[in-house]
Every structure is written in structure tokens, then in C-alpha cells.
């Protein structure tokens, strides 16, 4: 009898453990970006009240630290149920090639997502073998920020090409204003990809990443030369500034322009309380009008996720119209879905959504879309070689050597 009671007790404990469902979401969204993720999680918890969500964020360094933690967990065979990953090569070149993700094509078909997500974006998260993640937001990399009032005071128009910018540059320097402000290392690379896109055009820019255009091609070397001219118009204390401090320089009137992804709009509108279009203005970075350099965060389903069913439900929420429109206005990004309700977004985001729907789309290098991580990481070394030697040829040769070593485009 006593045995039976004990057995019943053990069984009931076992059952109750099994019925308390769990879901672990891994991301690097904390701080300013935390509320957006919380909104998404709240929506999930409202739909699946018996699931306990564990929000595993690892903060710091735009995901540098989080990705390191994720890699050790994956190598140790303990994947989270779903994790944040940049659409593009960071997803494909790191995780899909290593057979660590589950194909989600069936989910896209079931939810009808093939019709609501733009085809260019679906290409970014697909290989011949399937579709591998659910995109949750869209950021634009090639945006130039300024304060319209200040430009008027300095007698300067917004340049639409880098040639125009270089003309404006000397006039601004004469007035003691930094023409273009950059920050720590990755923001300089960020500027490079905008300059390269302008100089090469979207076709040749795309060919760099597929291996069809060599980095030592004269047109690419010319890109580095142009980049050097642009860098001559920047501040000399760059490596000491975070991207927010660089944005502050523009807002404070110490600098005229800043090329940064449109999370800068989120920072200026939400954190600094500026009115978009009045206190701060934007334009496509010079020479890239009509092209949308895209980066996108997405969530995927790792092979061996401990709570696979809950994770699939999570992905349904992430891809739903309701989920995307809850997340993105808070995050300061636009929804990848073309049917999102633009009334919920601010003036900048509405204009970005319009560009996203109409513009040509290309991938960002620095933010994991265009090239595999081994190349992307070593590109920092290429940039150091350029800043150290000032030689376009040396930088081009180094970039080509890295491309060969990391088998870029293959």
C-alpha cells in the first residue's frame, strides 16, 4: 500500500513537471530594445497561457557577446528553443551549412507567409534545401542623418552623391563643423558599405559577395580611394565614440552628417525625444537613392530544440501580423510583412516602409546579411590595414586574400 502511494506521488510529480511547459528565447535585446521583445513575449503568453517563457538575453556589443554564448551552447549540444539570428549569411553560412536548423518551409506554407513576405527577403533566409527562419524586423543600413535647421544655418544642402558631399565638406570644415561623424571600428565599416554601394551600384556590389567580382578589380580599388576621401572629412577621435555618441554629435550641432542604420531613428525619437522630419532629417546615403540596404533579425528553430512544439508556436506569433506590429513600433524598425498597419508607425518608419516596398534590396556586410561570419570578422582587419597604411591597393589586396582564405561566395 505504502509503495502504491509513493508510486502515485512520484507519477503525479512527474506529470506536473511535464505539464508546466517551457520555452526559452535567446536574444541580445535588452535595455532600449527590451520593451519590444517583452511586447512580443506578452502576446505569446496571452495566446499560450500555460507556457512559461524564459527570456534569455545576453547583453552587450551589438550581439557580439550573445553570439559567443550561443555558439558555446550549440557546440555543447544545448540549443535554446529559438534564437535571434540575422537573416542572410549569419543564418545560412554559420548555422544552416552546419545542419543545425530545421527547415520551416511547411510553416511558411501553412501560415501563408510566402505571399506576405517580400520575395527578396525570403531569398535571404532560404537555400535550395528550404526556408530557415522567420524574419521579425527590417532595418536599413544606408541612411544619412542630419538636423535640417543646422544645415540651413551653415548654408548647406543635403548631398545626393559623394561628389556633392566632398564639395560640401570643405565649406563645413571652414566653419569648424565636422562634415561627417563616425564612431568606433564597426561604424567605420558601416560607412564603407554605404560608400561601396554608391560607387559600385547595386549589381556590382552584390557580385562582391557571390565571388563574381574580385576585390582587386579596379572599380573596387576606386571604392577604397573614394572611401579615403570621405574619411578625410570625418572626426579624428572616431574610435572613442559609440554609435550613440556619434549621433549625439549631429544632434548637438558639432557635426553635419552621420551615416548609420535606422536604429539611430529609434534612438533619436524614443530616447532623445526628437520629432522626425522636424528636429532631425534623413536621406538615403549619397548615391544610394532607390536602393535599400537591408538587415533583418529573425528567429529560427534549432535542431534538437528541447521544447519544439512551443518554439513552433513562438515562430507563429513572431511571423503574425499582430506580433510584428506589436514589436516593430517599439523597436524602431519596420515589419517585413507588406500588409503591416502603417498607422502605428512614426513618420520616419512610414517613409522607410514605403522605400522597402519599392526599392531595390541589397544585403549589408557589417550586419551579417551579405557575407559569412569568417569574412565579416576579418573585414575589420582589412579596415585596420587601410586606416594604418592609407593605401587603397593594400586594402583591396588584403580583402581579396581574406575572400580567398574564407572561400567567400562558395
Amino acid at each position, binding site marked *: 500500500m505504502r509503495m502504491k502511494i509513493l508510486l502515485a506521488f512520484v507519477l503525479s510529480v512527474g506529470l506536473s513537471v511535464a505539464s508546466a511547459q517551457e520555452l526559452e528565447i535567446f536574444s541580445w535585446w535588452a535595455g532600449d530594445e527590451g520593451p519590444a521583445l517583452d511586447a512580443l513575449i506578452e502576446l505569446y503568453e496571452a495566446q499560450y497561457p500555460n507556457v512559461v517563457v524564459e527570456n534569455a538575453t545576453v547583453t552587450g556589443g551589438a550581439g557580439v557577446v550573445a553570439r559567443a554564448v550561443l555558439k558555446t551552447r550549440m557546440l555543447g549540444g544545448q540549443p535554446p528553443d529559438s534564437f535571434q539570428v540575422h537573416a542572410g549569411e549569419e543564418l545560412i553560412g554559420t548555422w544552416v*551549412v552546419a545542419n543545425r536548423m530545421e527547415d520551416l518551409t511547411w510553416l511558411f506554407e501553412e501560415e501563408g507567409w510566402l505571399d506576405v513576405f517580400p520575395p527578396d527577403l525570403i531569398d535571404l533566409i532560404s537555400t535550395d534545401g528550404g526556408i530557415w527562419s522567420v524574419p521579425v524586423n527590417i532595418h536599413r543600413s544606408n541612411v544619412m542623418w542630419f538636423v535640417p535647421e543646422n544645415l540651413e544655418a551653415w548654408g548647406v544642402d543635403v548631398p545626393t552623391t559623394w561628389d556633392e558631399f566632398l564639395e560640401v565638406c570643405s565649406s563645413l570644415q571652414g566653419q569648424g563643423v565636422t562634415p561627417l561623424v563616425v564612431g568606433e571600428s564597426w561604424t567605420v565599416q558601416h560607412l564603407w558599405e554605404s560608400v561601396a554601394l554608391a560607387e559600385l551600384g547595386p549589381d556590382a556590389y552584390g557580385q562582391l559577395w557571390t565571388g563574381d567580382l574580385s576585390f582587386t578589380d579596379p572599380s573596387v580599388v576606386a571604392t577604397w580611394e573614394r572611401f579615403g576621401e570621405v574619411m578625410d572629412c570625418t572626426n579624428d577621435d572616431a574610435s572613442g565614440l559609440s554609435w550613440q555618441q556619434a549621433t549625439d554629435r549631429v544632434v548637438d550641432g558639432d557635426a553635419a552628417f552621420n551615416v548609420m542604420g535606422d536604429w539611430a531613428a529609434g534612438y533619436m525619437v524614443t530616447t532623445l525625444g526628437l520629432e522626425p522630419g522636424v528636429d532631425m532629417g534623413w536621406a538615403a546615403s549619397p548615391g544610394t537613392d532607390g536602393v535599400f540596404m537591408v538587415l533583418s533579425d529573425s528567429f529560427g528553430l534549432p535542431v*534538437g530544440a528541447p521544447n519544439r512544439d512551443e518554439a513552433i508556436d513562438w515562430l507563429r506569433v513572431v511571423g503574425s501580423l499582430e506580433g510584428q506590429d506589436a514589436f516593430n513600433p517599439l523597436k524602431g524598425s519596420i515589419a517585413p510583412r507588406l500588409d503591416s498597419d502603417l498607422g502605428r508607425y512614426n513618420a520616419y518608419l512610414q517613409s522607410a516602409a514605403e522605400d522597402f516596398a519599392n526599392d531595390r534590396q541589397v544585403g549589408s556586410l557589417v550586419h551579417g546579411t551579405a557575407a559569412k561570419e569568417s569574412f565579416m570578422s576579418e573585414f575589420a582587419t582589412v579596415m585596420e590595414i587601410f586606416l594604418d597604411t592609407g593605401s587603397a591597393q593594400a586594402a583591396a589586396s588584403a580583402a581579396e586574400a581574406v575572400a580567398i582564405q574564407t572561400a567567400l561566395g562558395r
Partner: protein
Amino acid sequence: MRRLTRDRLTAILMLSPSLILLAIFVYGFIGQTLYVSLTNWGRDPAQALALQPRLEFVWFENYARLFSGVLESRFRQDLVNLFFFTTFFIAGSLGLGLVFAIALDRDVKGEGFFRTVFLFPFALSFIVTGTVWRWMLQPQGGLNVLPTLVGLPRGDFAWLTSRERIWTFDWRSLPDITAVVIAAVLVLLTVMAWREGRRGRAATLAAAAALLSAWVATGAPGIELLPFPEGRGFNLALVGIIIAAIWQMSGYTMALYLASLRGVPEELRESARIDGGSELQVYRYVVFPLLGPITLSAMIILGHVSLKIFDLIFAMTGPDLATTSVPALLMYIRAFRANQFADGAAIAMVLLLMVATVIIPYLVTSLRGEVRR
């Protein structure tokens, strides 16, 4: 064989948990890292993060590439940075610590207060120190504004963002420089052996020194590190990092020195004074020689802190600024951002070797000393 007494059995039982843990988590993982560093883990993206990566041996290819590969210039700059950082950091911490300790040892008023003030930075983590100093070393503010408080023009040194480089040398001359340094040490040892009257030993040492010098004089045949000149030197951006590190650790060396100074018997100083020694001579001939052992200990401790430095620089200039980077940062980036785990492991092994060359001689001598006692 000695009998297994109850006492010995207890001792073995008590020690075994820590021995087993050490064997697995220290020596086991050193072995694992060595193994990984000899493979190609990360070259093929399909294997880099696979659940069961298939690795192939490439033996010492990763090491060879680090020291002579065209693309690995950053690793070599990191090594040079680390050398300069370690030198100035140890010298600065010891010097400043000694000055503080002597000042406090002279019965100043409020000694307890100042001791706490000097020791306090040591209680902070390098991340906190790094963040604070990052702000203070901003070119537009912080330290550069200080002179304006007393009416001087503001400083304009670009601290962490400087790209200036002094004392440049060609990386290809590294074997020559190493050989010359070793030859100089050998000559010194020769002189010492000669003075001690050990002629045979002196002759051997002199021959070795002569051989090395001859090798350098003939243009160091047999080693070609790089096909082209590669300038390396002391990046001035490191100065800010060195200052922050000294700020953090000099209080610690002060505490070590202060304890040691207090251990110098007053009788010794008294007798030196009675013999007519000036205060300077008392320090020069009585106190400083007694500080030798503690200086060595401090150098070892600071040396291994310095060789492993990571968090301070990560907080001050981030992971990508090559002018202030060190091998530990590169190891992290290589392994966990670029997925080149074999490269990361190879850098880790180079770091381990460097720390070992500092620690092992110290351990050997201190163990010998204990046995003698």
C-alpha cells in the same frame, strides 16, 4: 614501498577531489586546446559549428601562419603591443607602488586613510576601471581638460584614438633582435661565471654567445618570416590603457611593499644610521636589498595579469581597434566571432607558453626554497 597508514589514506582521500577536478578542468582542457590548435577546425563552415565536427590534423600550420602569414599582421601587432604593455605596466606599477609604500612608511598623518585610497582601485574589476578611464580619456574632455583648471591651454593628446607609432622596427628582424638579446644575456652569464671562478662554464657560455653573434652577423640565415617588410612598434594609443592598468594595480604593489617594509627590523636601520649612513644610503644599502623577493613575487603576479589582459581593453577600446589590441582579444574574436576555433586555440597556446615562461621558473625556485627549509 611505505605502508599505507590510515593517515596517508585520509590524506589521499582528502586530496583526490581537487586532484581529479584539476586533472580534468585544467590539464584535460589544456590538452584539448592543444589538440584543437593542431586541427583545421573552422576552415570549413559546414564543420565549424556542426554538432559532431569532423576535424583533420594540420599539425603546426596554424602556428606557422600566425607568425608568418600575410593576413595575420594583426596577431603580430598584438604580440608587440603586449610586449610594450607588459613592460610599462610592470615597471609603472612597481615604481608607483614603491613610492606610495615608502611615503606611507614614514609615519605620515592619516596613513590609514591614504592606504585605503591607494588600495581602493584594486577592489574594482577591470571592466569598471576600463569604462571610467574610457570616459576620462575622451579627447574632448576628462584628462585633456585638466590643465585648463590652472589656466593652462587644454591638452590635445588623442589618448586612445591616436594612430601614432614610435620605436618602429621591421618584424622580419625579430630573429636578429631575439638572438642579440639572448647573446647579451649569455655574455652577462659568462662574466658572472668567470667571477665565480667557474672557468669551464664561462668558456661554454662564451662560445654559445659567439656562435649566436656570428649567426646574426652573417644575416641570420635559415629564417625568413615574411616576404616583405612589416613595420611594428609602440602604438601611443596604448599609453592610456597602461595608465588605467597602473592606476588599478599600483595600490596592490603598494600593499605588498608596505608589508615588506614593515618587516625590515628597525634595529638594522638604526645601526646603519649609527654607522653614519644618510637616509638615502639606508634605503639604498639596507632596505632595498631586502625588498628583492617581494619585487620578484610582484613581477610574477603583475606579469601574468598583464599577459592575460582582456577585459580592460575590451571595455576601453572594444574588440576591433588594432592599435590597442592584444592576443587575448584576437583569440576571442577569432574563435567566437569568425568561428575559426583552431586559430583561437593556437593563439591560446601561444599565450599559455608565454605565461608558463614567467610562472614556471618562479614555481621551481620557490618550491626548491621550501624543500631546503
